[in-house]
C-alpha cells in the first residue's frame, strides 16, 4: 500500500479527528486564559484568603500531571455526582491545567511593569481600577504575549491526551487506524505532521502577528 493509497483510505477519519482537535484546542485555550487571568490576579491580591486560594489552585494543578487531572475529572468526579461528558471533561482538564501555568505568566507580567508606571498613575490621581485597566494591564499584556505563545503550543499538545478518555480527536483516530492497519509510521507520522503544521502555520503566525499589533498599539514597535 503506497502512502497515497493510505491517505485516500484514511484521510476522512484524520480530517474528522483534526477538527475535534482544533475544537478541543480552542476551547481549552479559552478556559486557560480565563483561569490564568482570574488566578493570576488573585495571587496578587492583598487579601490573604484570596491569595491562598490562588496559590493552592496553582500548586495543585502545576504539581500533578495533566493526565492524572484528566482521569480524575473524568473518572472520579462522577462519583461525587458531577457527570461531565468526555468532550467537556477533555477541554476542561487541559484548560484548568494550562491556566495554572498561565496564571504565573499573568502575575509575572504584572509585576514586570515598571514601578514608575504605578507611581505615575497614582500621581495623576487615577482610581485603582483605571490604573489597572489603562496603565498596568496593557503593558503587562505586551510583556506576557511571547511566553503565552509557548503555552498555547503546550495547550495544543496537551489536547492529545483527551484521546485517552476516548474523545475522537486526531490522536484517537490515528490510534484506531494503527490498530486496524498496523501501518504505524504512516498513521502516527501523518498525525505528527498535522500537529506540527497546526503549530507552525496557525498558532505561531497568529501569536507573532498579535505580538506585533499589540506592541505597535502601545508604541513599542
Amino acid at each position, binding site marked *: 500500500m503506497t502512502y497515497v493509497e493510505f491517505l485516500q483510505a484514511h484521510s476522512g477519519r484524520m480530517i474528522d479527528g483534526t477538527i475535534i482537535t482544533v475544537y478541543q484546542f480552542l476551547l481549552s485555550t479559552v478556559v486557560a486564559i480565563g483561569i490564568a487571568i482570574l488566578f493570576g490576579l488573585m495571587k496578587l491580591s492583598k487579601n490573604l484568603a484570596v491569595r491562598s486560594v490562588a496559590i493552592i489552585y496553582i500548586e495543585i494543578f502545576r504539581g500533578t500531571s495533566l493526565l*492524572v487531572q484528566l482521569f480524575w475529572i473524568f473518572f472520579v468526579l462522577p462519583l461525587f455526582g458531577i457527570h461531565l461528558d468526555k468532550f467537556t471533561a477533555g477541554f476542561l482538564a487541559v484548560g484548568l491545567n494550562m491556566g495554572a501555568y498561565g496564571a504565573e505568566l499573568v502575575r509575572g507580567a504584572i509585576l514586570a511593569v515598571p514601578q514608575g508606571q504605578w507611581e505615575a498613575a497614582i500621581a495623576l490621581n487615577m482610581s485603582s481600577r483605571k490604573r489597572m485597566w489603562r496603565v498596568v494591564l496593557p503593558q503587562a499584556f505586551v510583556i506576557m504575549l511571547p511566553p503565552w505563545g509557548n503555552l498555547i*503550543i503546550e495547550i495544543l499538545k496537551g489536547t492529545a491526551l483527551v484521546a485517552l478518555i476516548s474523545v475522537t480527536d486526531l490522536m484517537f483516530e490515528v490510534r484506531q487506524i494503527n490498530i486496524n492497519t498496523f501501518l504505524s509510521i504512516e498513521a502516527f507520522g501523518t498525525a505528527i505532521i498535522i500537529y506540527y503544521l497546526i503549530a507552525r502555520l496557525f498558532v505561531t503566525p497568529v501569536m507573532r502577528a498579535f505580538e506585533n499589533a499589540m506592541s505597535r498599539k502601545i508604541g513599542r514597535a
Partner: protein
Amino acid sequence: MIEWQWELVWELAPRFVDATGKTLMAAGGGYGIAVILGLIFVVAQRTPIRVLTFTMREFVELVRSTPLLLQIFFVYYVGPQFGLILSPWTAGLIAIGVHYGAYLSEVYRGGIESVSKGQWEAAKAINLPIVRTYRRIVLPQALPPAIAGMGNYLVGIFKDTPMLSVIGVAELMHTATTIGAESYRYLEPYTMVGAIFLALSLPAAFFINVFEKWVRRTLGMVK
C-alpha cells in the same frame, strides 16, 4: 456519594511505593538521555555545516511542537514495522528522552549564548581545539544560567511519565488504572497518584531553587 476508604489506601500502599520507584526510574532514565541528547542537539546546531544546522533546528522545532503522547506511540509502534521490537521501557525512555532533549537543547542554547564572545575569541587566540573550548571554557560558564531551566524540565519529565502508561510501563498511572479495573475503585487510586506527584514535585521544585542559588553563590555570580 462515595466514601473515602482509608483501609483501601493502606492496602494499596505497597503497590504504589513500588510504582513510585518505577516512575522515578523512568523520569531519571529519561532525563539522563535528555541531558546528553540536548547537548548533541545544541552542538549540532552550532556547527558550520549548513544542512546539519538546518535539519537539527527543524527537528527540534518538530519535536517541541508535537504531543509527547504521539511520539511515544510513534517510537513504540514504528519499530516493529521494520522488524525492530522495543520493550515499552526502551521505547518510552527513548521517546521521553528525545522530547525533553529538544527542550533542554533550547535551555543550553540560552546558556551558551550568554557566554560572552570574548571567551570564544580568547580560546581561538590561544589555539584551543574546539572540543576543549566547549568542555573547559564555554560549558562551565553556560551551565549556571541553564540550571533553573534544567531543573524545571526535570520536574516536567517527572510529571509527563504517566503518559508512558499507555504503552504499558507499570508506573504510577498504570498501577492506578489497573487497580481501578480490578476493584472498580477509582477515587482512592487516582487521588493517591495525584497526592504522590504533588508530594514529590513541590519539594523538588523547592530544592532546585535552593540549588540554583547555591551554584550562583559558589561561582560568585550573585546578581
